[in-house]
């Protein structure tokens, strides 16, 4: 009998999820108190009675009242809920909740009443979702999914209804999952245990999420956040050889060719529409960030037809600036390379991303990695690449060593692939060079006024910044960087370019932490010893003044700093 098996399964599942409730199980509850035992037996008794016949249906009400008193008696409530779940599953399996055509008025009334109870029961359970107690949340989720299973296992037509209609348990569950902001645990559990495992659950989840977004009265940001959260917990979408195999509902869909569950196209369509629904709804910055991080792995593969809508979303994010741009960059790149997206003014936009903060951002290495890809092509105009080079060089004057360490070999590679950039490093005097002609305009040769840097930092179009006529004084200055390794690295620009190219990946993930860790990780070498300043200064923080001693510059700074610590 399916009901029995179901119960066993529920128990097992529950044991896994809420081990602390094991003790309350009737079968292995040797230590429970007498009162506890009595309620347990009572619940079991009630449950059995219900199953015996229609006359005991009122017990349901009693059990429900127990369920509702979770705050005071959690254990009893849980037991009652489990019992009720069993009851309803059996009733559904016995088709007690179905109004048959030949039913009498009385019967119809009973069915209606039962349906009402079920609805109430589900509502009660839904209130548990999002509660701070993980065990309670998990129990309710499990029980609800049992009900869903029972509902969706009664013939193809009614199952379909149970999946899709807004009054169904499944839909309500999804709605609750999305609406409760603090139901992260439940969402994660749902994603991992059900959506990832069962193909039909995943499919209908997409549908339900879309519907919730559509029907929810206020397009509240919480719901969207919940939706993003829920969908992010689902595993990445299937690829072309999509073969749905695992079904949650007991009656697996027939292998009829027109079954929507079996075709990849329908699946994709569902997912795509859901995502689009999310894009259309108002998004907070955090949600946007989450979406963008998901974009390449979760969202993009689902989009096969209406790419422009996705592109719009990405473009919006890209234009938003800051970290959002960085995150959107990856997906846009994916679209450009894989889906042949035409992105006008891409390099201008990319160029505008290079500001002071990017070198200090925590997404620095991610950005650098992409930047290298974008600018690797040898077919790009040299002036454009020169603008990027010059701008990064300018920014590196205030950059941390970790960024400089990447910029220098990157510039090396750029010069290698665009030989005309060599002038940035070596520009012998020639009147044809703009930098010299500009000089001769401003002053005569006899009294040189000095060279004006042709590079315009404020120009936003990378093609017209004039960087190609400039010189990389900044990187030359960095050859005397305080960190010995950085300084040595910067010197490669002044040496012969014998190496074909540097593997930039090796330079990406350096930070202060790695530099300091590396230096302090080394032991003081015994052979070389430690150099010590040979002269011992008479005064360090003090200096002699007319009367006694006074603090000198360092001393003043030091006392100032110590004073505020």
């Amino acid at each position, binding site marked *: 009998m399916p009901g029995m098996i179901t119960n066993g399964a529920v128990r097992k599942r529950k044991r896994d999820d809420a081990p602390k409730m094991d003790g309350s199980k009737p079968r292995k509850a040797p230590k429970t108190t007498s009162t506890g035992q009595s309620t347990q037996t009572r619940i079991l008794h009630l449950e059995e009675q219900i199953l015996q016949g229609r006359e005991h249906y009122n017990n349901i009400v009693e059990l429900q009242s127990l369920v509702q008193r979770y705050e005071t008696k959690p254990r009893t409530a849980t037991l009652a809920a489990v019992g009720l779940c069993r009851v309803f599953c059996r009733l559904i399996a016995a088709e007690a909740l179905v109004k048959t055509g030949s039913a009498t008025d009385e019967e119809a009334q009973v069915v209606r009443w039962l349906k009402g109870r079920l609805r109430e029961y589900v509502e009660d359970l839904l209130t548990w979702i999002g509660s701070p107690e993980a065990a309670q949340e998990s129990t309710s989720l499990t029980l609800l999914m049992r009900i869903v299973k029972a509902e969706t296992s009664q013939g193809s037509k009614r199952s379909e209804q149970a999946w899709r209609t807004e009054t169904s348990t499944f839909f309500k569950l999804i709605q609750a999952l999305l609406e409760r902001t603090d139901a992260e645990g439940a969402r994660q559990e749902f994603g991992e245990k059900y959506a990832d495992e069962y193909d039909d659950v995943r499919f209908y989840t997409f549908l339900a999420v879309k519907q919730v977004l559509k029907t929810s009265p206020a397009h509240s940001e919480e719901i969207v956040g919940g939706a993003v959260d829920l969908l992010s917990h689902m595993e990445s979408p299937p690829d072309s050889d999509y073969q749905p195999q695992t079904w949650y509902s007991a009656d697996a869909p027939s292998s009829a060719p027109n079954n929507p569950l079996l075709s990849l196209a329908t699946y994709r369509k569902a997912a795509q529409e859901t995502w689009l629904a999310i894009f259309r709804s108002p998004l907070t910055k955090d949600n946007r960030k989450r979406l963008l991080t998901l974009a390449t792995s979760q969202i993009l593969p689902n989009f096969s037809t209406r790419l422009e809508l996705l592109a719009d979303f990405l473009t919006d994010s890209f234009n938003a600036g800051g970290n959002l741009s960085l995150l959107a960059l990856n997906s846009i790149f994916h679209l450009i390379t894989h889906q042949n997206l035409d992105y006008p003014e891409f390099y201008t936009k990319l160029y505008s991303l290079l500001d002071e903060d990017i070198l200090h951002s925590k997404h620095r290495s991610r950005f650098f990695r992409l930047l290298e890809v974008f600018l690797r092509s040898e077919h790009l105009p040299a002036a454009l690449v020169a603008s990027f080079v010059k701008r990064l060089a300018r920014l*590196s*004057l205030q950059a*941390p*060593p970790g960024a*400089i*360490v990447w910029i220098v070999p990157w510039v090396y590679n750029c010069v290698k692939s665009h030989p005309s950039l060599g002038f940035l490093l*070596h520009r012998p005097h020639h009147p044809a060079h703009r930098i010299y002609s500009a000089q001769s305009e401003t002053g005569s040769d006899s009294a040189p*006024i000095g060279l*004006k*840097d042709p590079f315009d930092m404020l120009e936003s179009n990378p093609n017209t910044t004039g960087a190609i006529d400039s*010189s990389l004084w*900044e990187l*030359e*200055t*960095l050859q*005397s960087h305080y*960190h010995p*390794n950085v*300084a*040595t*690295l910067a010197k490669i*620009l*002044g040496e012969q370019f*014998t*190496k074909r*190219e540097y593997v930039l990946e*090796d*330079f990406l*993930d*350096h930070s*202060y*932490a790695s530099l*300091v*860790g*590396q*230096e*302090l*990780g*080394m*032991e*003081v*070498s*015994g*052979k070389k010893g*430690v*150099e*010590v300043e040979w002269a*011992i200064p008479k005064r360090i923080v*003090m200096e002699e003044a007319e009367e006694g*001693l006074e603090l000198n*510059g*360092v001393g*003043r*700074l*030091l006392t*100032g*700093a*110590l004073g*505020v*610590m």
Partner: protein
Amino acid sequence: MPPSQLKALKTRLREKGITAPSKSKTQRKSGSGHANPKDRHTALQQIRDDFNPSELRHVSARPAKFPSTSIYNSTGSGKYAKILHRPGVSKSAGEDMRRQHLLPEMRRRNKTGGLIDRRIGEGDEGMTAEQRAVMRFTKEKEGRRGGVFDLEGSDDEGGLMGLTHGGRTIDELEDDDMKGSGKGSESEDEDAGFLVKKRRRDEEEDDDVEEADEGQPDVKKSKKEVMQEVIAKSKLHKYERQKVKEDDEDLIDKLDAGMADLLPLLRSQQAPPPPSAPIEIQPRNTANEAGMKMDPERQKLLDGMDRAQADKDYEKRLRELAQDTRAKPSERTKTAEERAKEEAERLKMLEERRSKRMRGEQVADDEEEEQGRDVDVEDVEENAVDALGNEEVGDDAEEFGFASAGVEAMQKTREKVRHVDEDEFDFDADLVASASEAELSDQESEADDASVPGEIMEAEQEQDEEDEFVNGILGGANATPITDSSNTTIVDGSGALAFTYPCPRSHAELLSIVDTLPVQQLPTIIQRIRALYHPSLSAANKEMMSDFSRALVDHLAYMAEHNQPLPVAEQVIRHLHSLSRTYAIPIAEAFRTHLLAWHERPGGEPSKGDLVVLTAIGSIYPTSDHFHQVVTPATTLMGRWLAVNAPSPGAKMVDERRSRVGALMVGLCVRWQALSKRIVPEAVRFTLRILATIAVTRTSSTEVAEHLENLTAMAELWKDKTAFIEIFQPFLPILRNLGSTATPASEHLTTLLGPSRQTRRPLLLHNHRPQPLRTSNPKFEEGFNPDKHYDPDRERSDAAKLRKEVNREKKGAVRELRKDGAFVAREELREKRERDADFVKRERRLVAEIAQEGRESQGGGGGRARGKGRR
């Protein structure tokens, strides 16, 4: 109709002047004609060749090859000159040769025993009987020349009269036997075919040649004679040596005789010489017939002492002498001028070393190691070049000292990392030894380094300075240690201090001593402890002091945490500095521990102690070094703090703590780079941001002054940098916003920017010599010859040459064998024919004889027989 050959020959001969029309006597006398027979011969040969064109095989007999394939068909030179082949001539020569050697052998085949005629010229068909006779005669004469009664001649070599066997002397025969037995060729000889015999034949010929060679040089001396000569010579030499030695001894004796007069003079100044080198009067060596005196050591050596032992003794004594303090001349007192000069030189040298370190070069004593590392780097680069850029095995970043990425892993598994780092120096075998050397006390190391004059001076200087810190106590109990006015108070109070303390070996121990006493006393206490446990007093003190220095570093941070007065901290720093001379490594490690603690503190905020530690580092260590074990991490940590704590552009208020700490850090950065003028981007950024924030929020305070001061210092420091404009231009609008307080700084910046703009020129970084193209095999050859091998690998080309030679020889041998076979067959056929012809002849003769006999017997009854026959 072709002209007659005879006529043509005649004309040709006449043309060449070989046959001339008969000339008159005078003409014959005056005209030289063909004086040179060689010319004549060549002329004749030419004519012969012309008339027998088929005798010559021209190179053009085969179709011409392209010059790219072979150079032979064109008229080459030298080795590749055109060669005229005469197949007919070489064929007949080969035939002759075979007839000469092969034929007799063939005839002797399958025959055992018999007599081999080894007389000169026997079997040589090229010799006439007369020639043979002449040869034999001369040989005989030659052998006799010594004469039978010649005493010089040795016993065993009586000309040709020695015992011979098979035409060879017994000696040679013995050799042969040895050879034979060695190879075990006795049995082989029998069944081995023709070739083996041929080989033997060759050997025999060789022997003949040897014999001829032996006969050539004039009479040899006998072995005995030679030995006697050698003995005589050596005796003569020995005698001469002894003679010289005797003379020397006489001279020494004479000197020794005068020694008695000298000794009193020497004794007045010196202790008697060590007993290990006694001047003993040796007993006369009776064995020495010359009766001369001998050095005892030498005598011992002669008596059979171990040579190695003697060497060791010698070395030992030499070392003793060298290390004898008296061996050194005492130093004279230097004049003031000399001292000043030395001091100046010392300073100059120190400065040189410093700037070398600043440039990242290795100072002199580390050069060897540096070379080792250089090689390593080159290796790495070589790898990179070999693989053409993309396929290097190593990490690009690692070349520049950036360990590969795993940052967290690096921190977490520092132990492992250490191990890896040590691996780098694994090749340095003497690392361990040198490490222990460094642990030696300063005195010892000074003695070791004494060869470098600068080091001595430095050591002296150190000694002087150490006196300043220590001597106060060592000299007199309560003398003023430092004659600074500030310290008078300290000394005044020191009456309450104890004079001896247990040496504190941890910070806790130090605290237990110091805590109860007033802070001002601390320098005095340190001074006393340093004096009490001066390493020169006891060997154990060294370790104690090194622990004490660690504790002192901890205490420095502790003092800052507890807001103890800075002047005292300053004194502690100076003590640490002076201690660093001796205990550099422990103190550096202690500082690094503090830095590490700061680095690992969540948030990366420095404590008060860290700030003082930073100040101390800046004072104790040379901050201008390219890399320094303490300074570099400290700067990086400051950079990190500045980068993290720079206020964001939109900040609405200035955190005072941030501002003050930042000001200190920027100030320290600037001061540390005072000499090396390295750029610190984070300091620029921090100052820029903080000034901008101040300008926006209008929080005018003393901090602005600090930051402006820092800004001016930075500008002054980096005014020569090419990117000066780029660095400092952004400050100008901010300074304008700041108002009147910033006017001086703004003006200063503007004045500095002007010249910087004027002097700036586009970069010229690549004034390198153009790189030569990589040359690789095959390189271009002038006059390339396709037949020659231009393999640069000598071994391979040699092997190829050898292989080719073997091949050619093999082919030649096969051809020869085939020709031999043909010859043998031909000869056999000829013999058979001869035999057959002989047989037929004999048979005929016999038949004829018989017939005749028959006829004769029928002489009487001839008719009867005939009649019978007819019947």
